[in-house]
């Protein structure tokens, strides 16, 4: 199934994420660093209230894309709008951002760090302290409020930074690789927090190179590789890119009935594996029964996001998307 990049982009972006207003809209974002093309024509549309994932390998351009969306750096070409604003700094109060590189002032107390991060987004310091204490209490960290960051464990410091990201109650939360460095328990907590934010109407966009997080959480994803986005749309539509696989086990090992199997059938041990035919399995079943294949089991397995990612990234490679490390210009 070869498809030109433009066709794929259109297909991906057309994948239905509803008709809600957009929290983020980016078209044709390009960013170069000297001779290094980090991002090359990225399109992303994130509806308000969605949990949206930016998937890609390390060095694919995820962080640069997020930084452009947030106005930390300006794109060389293309447009970005956050809640309809061209300049994200104008609506900094609506945005919370957790960068990939976690950082806090080591000498600052946890409560002051949270209040300071709120103040950066326009929240008065006193209000920030009050809310910060509530957030710390909600995360069973009230005892750490007056402790300096340098005296907290890494996990606690990360939680403090996350709470600082949320203290001003943003409408859009951008998390760059939020799960990296967290143990399984804290990853679970973070997933629950992201779901709760979305339930409250907050738009959450996060980057990750771990597909399972995106698969469990996201309504929409943008797959990014080599600075390009070969797919952006709903997770469901991404999974539908790969036909469901049929897994068939028969009592008879061979026979004329095998002529009825689709052309892409392959044997895996005792099983026959093939893509779900366009007309469904019913016509095939009838032929297998008539041919006395002796059907022991038959299951239809839908592709996961991981398979879809591999499938799309493979296509991307075929369309000269690069190897994920960016493209060197000469």
């Amino acid at each position, binding site marked *: 199934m070869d498809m030109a990049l433009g066709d794929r982009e259109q297909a991906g972006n057309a994948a239905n994420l509803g008709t809600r207003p957009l929290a983020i809209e980016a078209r044709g974002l390009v960013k170069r660093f000297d001779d290094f093309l*980090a991002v090359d024509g990225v399109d992303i549309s994130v509806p308000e209230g969605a949990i949206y994932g930016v998937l890609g390998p390390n060095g694919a351009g995820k962080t640069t894309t997020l930084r452009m969306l*947030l106005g930390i750096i300006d794109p060389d070409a293309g447009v970005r709008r956050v809640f309809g604003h061209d300049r994200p*700094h104008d609506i900094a*109060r609506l945005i919370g951002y957790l960068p990939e*590189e976690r950082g*806090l002032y080591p000498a600052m107390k946890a409560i002051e760090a949270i209040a300071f991060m709120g103040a*950066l987004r*326009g929240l008065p310091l006193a209000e920030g302290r009050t809310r910060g204490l509530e957030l710390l209490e909600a995360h069973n960290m009230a005892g750490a409020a007056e402790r300096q960051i340098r005296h907290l464990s890494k996990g606690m410091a990360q939680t403090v930074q996350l709470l600082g990201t949320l203290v001003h109650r943003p409408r859009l939360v951008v998390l760059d690789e939020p799960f990296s460095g967290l143990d399984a328990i804290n990853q679970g907590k973070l997933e629950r927090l992201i779901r709760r934010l979305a339930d409250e109407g907050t738009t959450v966009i996060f980057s990750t190179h771990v597909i399972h997080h995106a698969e469990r959480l996201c309504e929409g994803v943008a797959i990014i590789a080599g600075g390009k986005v070969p797919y952006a749309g709903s997770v469901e539509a991404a999974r539908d890119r790969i036909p469901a696989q049929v897994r068939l086990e028969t009592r008879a090992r061979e026979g004329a009935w095998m002529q009825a199997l689709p052309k892409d059938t392959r044997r895996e041990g005792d099983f026959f594996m093939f893509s779900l035919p366009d007309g469904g399995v019913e016509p095939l079943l009838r032929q297998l029964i008539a041919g006395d294949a002796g059907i022991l089991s038959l299951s239809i397995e839908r592709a996961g996001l991981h398979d879809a990612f591999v499938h799309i990234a493979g296509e991307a490679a075929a369309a000269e998307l690069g190897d994920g490390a960016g493209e060197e210009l000469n």
Partner: protein
Amino acid sequence: MAHTPTARLSMLRAAMVIARRDFLAILFSRSFLFFLLGPVFPAVVFAMSGGLGQAKHENKQEPRIAIQMPSADIERVLAAHYKLQDELGRDRIPHFLILDRAKGHAELDIDRALADRSGRIGATLTGTLDDPVLTGTQQRLNEWRGYVAMQLAVARDNSNLAYPALQTETITTSGAETKNRRQDTAQISMTLLFLLMMLLAGMVLSNLVEEKANKIIEILAAALPMDAVFLGKLFAMLAVSLVGIAVWFTGVGLFITLAGDVGGIGMVLAGMPTPGVGWPLFCILFVLNFSMGYLLIGSIFLAIGALASTVREVQTLSMPVTMLQLFIFFFASFVLVDGAPILELAAILFPLSSPFAMTARAAQDETLWPHLVTLIYQIAWVTLFIRWGSRLFRTRVLKSGGGGNRLPLRQRLLARWRKRAT
């Protein structure tokens, strides 16, 4: 969850958020205490070297002229010496070491006497009054020949020269003296400005390097325009500097009040003539010029912080700026001494030397309006420098997911140079 309103922070409010944090963090840090104590060490060294110099001065004996002549000639030379000493002053003429053979002194061995390591004898006067011989090094002969010849002339003539009674009238100051002394005030103020800026500007750099090391810079850049971040940092450092200056000046004042004028600082300060604009305005202008100079040099240091990714790179890159500061100081000092209007205008117009030139002007000239104009001019340059620095920072620092540059600066520059060469 109730969301926050949308209106953005103004540039000044955003800068104040940064400035407040940085100011309090530095003020209540241990390093600030060491920073305050910083000038104490050079002051102690200065005081100790001053004490040593004083002791050396006290122990030092001025070399004399060893005289060996017939006794009668020696007496006449001495009479002439005392007579001239009364008119010229005791310290203005060389003194004699009398080696009168008639009084038991040994024959003078000239070579040995002059080679004596004690250094008591700088030259010898031998022969007779009619045929005197002065022996010594060329330097000594150049220095003493005239005085000795004068004394010998008076001694040989044995005349009683009548010196007329000269009426004298003292005035407190003259135009020429005021100009000279105000020039001294200007030079002292400029030197103080230079020393303070040298001492304090480096603080900006270390603060930014710390910020990069803490990886918090991206949080700041995401929330606020980089211009506001830079401005806030510079304001904080300026406030810290002003606190430092206030503490140091108060300390010096208290020290002089309680311990007396050790080292003569109080005397020097009391002896400084009133600047052209008067002391209160001069102090205000000094602080304003310091602030402008500090903001200008601070924004350059911030830009350096943007280029550098390690402390070593910071040190390498800050060296040319330090040399530039020195050059600017010497340029401003030269302009002060030279006094050429075109050079003064150049010093005022060049943004980095402008604070020095205007401080010097405040010490020497009464006119106020040029200060107002140049302050506006300097503010414009500060704005330009900050914008340039923050732009450089945005393009250089936030390049990759790692939050920093991929290669060390030297390798990056080398790669760029190679590419251009090919």
